[in-house]
């Protein structure tokens, strides 16, 4: 048994870890060792990738590329391949993943199972929108090849399916063309939520990437970042600065005493340096990937991330109400992101992205205080007709999961009875 944590480090419990490293042997290994759950890089924050006391099928050894067509940009690979490896290999060849989340240190399988999204949701949708096919291994040994047009129900259940429909062996992904690694980006400060929504709406047609950092304590000021891919030729080289948090500090280094001055300093510092610049895609899209083990900053108790999406009509009021609750509680952290989602329909039955506005915040784990704040936020999200992102979640109540994901009933018959995770037991009872 090995102690395993997810990214939030809320607990560290024993698991029986079985390395899946050869796709020919996977069927035999998985048939003989269920119930379990697939586990890639463990970058989801809560319990979607955990199965304490039980089995984890560790997929990072399944990291072989199988086929790539330079003309069409179709890539076939095993599910344990890291998005980083695809990016670094393909960008010099003029191709790139259309959708990546805020870290590229995740596996293809994890990106599918959580149907991840990025800063360009309004243009490219989520990860599942670019899948042409995937191979699913059921724990009874059956292998199902499915895609948006064949065995579409298996496909729709597996994209965003939290790993519960089977073990993903391989995927075929449609990459998108890029001229190079550079982006032309622009940072614009905003003073309140009205300004944010105006900026977001104005930027949707002209910019592929939009995202904003929001000061969660000040009621709505922040920095809006938007960018487009650029055909700039190599102006300089990207030399990522490598940092590492070497140990877990005894208390969270991000807390209510330093958050307000920190946010304020950051806002004013950035406000005086706004404007356009050319940036490499790595620091723009994955700013925290250069700080190894940054999740240790929150101390031994770990942290939660709370990410919700609410429909656009309710977006302004719900976001304001959530920020007020957070500000009043004194909880929260520097890492807070506000972004609008576009109209593209997600491919999965349980996919998180839907049209509206999404707010994501980290919270150091202060026990009951934090959990009680979440209950108040849940109420706002629930009443606004929104949902919580399962990939980030460790605590949402079952009722909110059920109300947030109306296609759950359609999904349930497609679950694999040989798969179970801490999250599935918490949210759907087995």
């Amino acid at each position, binding site marked *: 048994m090995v102690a395993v944590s997810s990214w939030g480090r809320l607990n560290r419990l024993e698991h029986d870890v079985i*390395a899946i490293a*050869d796709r020919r042997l996977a069927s035999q290994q998985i048939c003989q060792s269920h119930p379990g759950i697939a586990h890639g890089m463990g970058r989801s924050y809560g319990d979607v990738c955990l199965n304490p006391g039980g089995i984890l099928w560790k997929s990072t050894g399944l990291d072989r590329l*199988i086929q790539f067509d330079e003309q069409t940009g179709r890539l076939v690979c095993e599910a344990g391949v890291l998005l980083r490896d695809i990016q670094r290999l393909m960008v010099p060849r003029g191709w790139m993943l259309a959708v990546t989340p805020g870290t590229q240190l995740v596996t293809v399988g994890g990106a599918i199972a959580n149907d991840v999204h990025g800063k360009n949701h309004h243009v490219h949708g989520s990860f599942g929108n670019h899948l042409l096919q995937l191979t699913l291994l059921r724990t009874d040994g059956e292998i199902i090849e499915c895609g948006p047009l064949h065995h579409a129900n298996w496909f729709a259940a597996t994209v965003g399916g939290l790993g519960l429909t089977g073990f993903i062996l391989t995927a075929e992904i449609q990459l998108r063309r890029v001229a190079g690694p550079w982006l032309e980006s622009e940072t614009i400060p905003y003073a309140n939520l009205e300004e944010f929504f105006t900026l977001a709406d104005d930027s949707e047609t002209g910019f592929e990437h939009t995202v904003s950092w929001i000061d969660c304590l000040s009621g709505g000021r922040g920095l809006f970042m938007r960018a487009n891919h650029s055909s700039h030729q190599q102006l300089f080289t990207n030399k990522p600065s490598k940092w590492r948090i070497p140990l877990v500090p005894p208390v969270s280094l991000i807390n209510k005493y330093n958050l307000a001055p920190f946010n304020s300093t950051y806002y004013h510092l950035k406000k005086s340096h706004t404007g356009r610049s050319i940036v490499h895609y790595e620091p723009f899209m994955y700013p925290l990937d250069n700080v190894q083990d940054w999740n240790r900053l929150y101390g031994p108790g770990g942290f939660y991330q709370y990410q919700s999406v609410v429909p656009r009509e309710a977006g302004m009021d719900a976001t304001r109400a959530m920020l007020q609750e957070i500000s009043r509680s004194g909880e929260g952290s520097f890492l807070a992101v506000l972004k609008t989602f576009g109209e593209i329909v997600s491919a999965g039955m349980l996919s998180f992205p839907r049209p509206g506005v999404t707010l994501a915040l980290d919270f150091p784990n202060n026990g009951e205080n934090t959990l009680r704040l979440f209950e108040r936020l849940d109420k706002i999200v629930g009443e606004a007709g929104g949902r919580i992102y399962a990939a980030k979640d460790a605590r949402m109540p079952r009722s909110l999961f059920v109300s947030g994901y109306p296609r759950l009933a359609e999904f349930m018959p497609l679950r694999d009875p040989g798969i179970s995770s801490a999250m599935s037991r918490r949210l759907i009872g087995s």
Partner: protein
Amino acid sequence: MSTKKQRIVIIGATSLIAEHCARLWVMQASSDMILVGRDSARMEQIATDLKVRSPGSQIKCMQADFIAADKITELVASIKNEGAVDIVLIAHGSLPDQQKCQQDLLLCQDTLLINGLSPVLFAEAFATSMQKANRGTLAIIGSVAGDRGRKSNYIYGSAKGLVSRYVQGMQHRFANTRVKIVLIKPGPTDTPMTSHLKQQGAKLASAEEVALHIVNGISKGALTIYAPPIWKLIMMIVRHIPAFLFNRLNI
């Protein structure tokens, strides 16, 4: 000369460290690579992966016997006949449970053969042609376990120790030539071979990281590569602990 592809031979190509070395090499520059291993289906997967990573590379798979001297001679001759080799990486090995080795003499024998005798036979088979060509690098993966015998893995360790002493002699033999003989000593690495160590809670380096040290070390012309380099310091200390103290340690 500069446009000619490097010719690289990897013995034990399905080992995880070897696979990561191969990826790094083909991504640095298109190569003419020969993978030698036992499991040909596994090798095909690896070769396909390398071709996707580096469409300009040629990847050839050869199935081999790892123990029989005549088969090794034959295999190496067929590789040499097709041209001079720039890099040979001898990477295979197996790490069984020490207790089982003590109880099962057959397992003990297999462990000594595959980790000790076999790499030496492969290296020796390549050495003469490299001498004639007066170029090339012959790199063998040994282990920190070969630096000092200890009760928890001395069967494996003694086979790796044999490799160390062999490389020492080879380095002497090739001292005034342009042929380089390299000994690689990885510390405990996260591979299928060590999954039982991980279950016991050992902290392991990633195969990717170890491979990066190997590939960089070889291109810089290092003769001994500890991977990661911290093991150089650790093993220097371990080698110098007096026996009366060392033998009381439970390691």
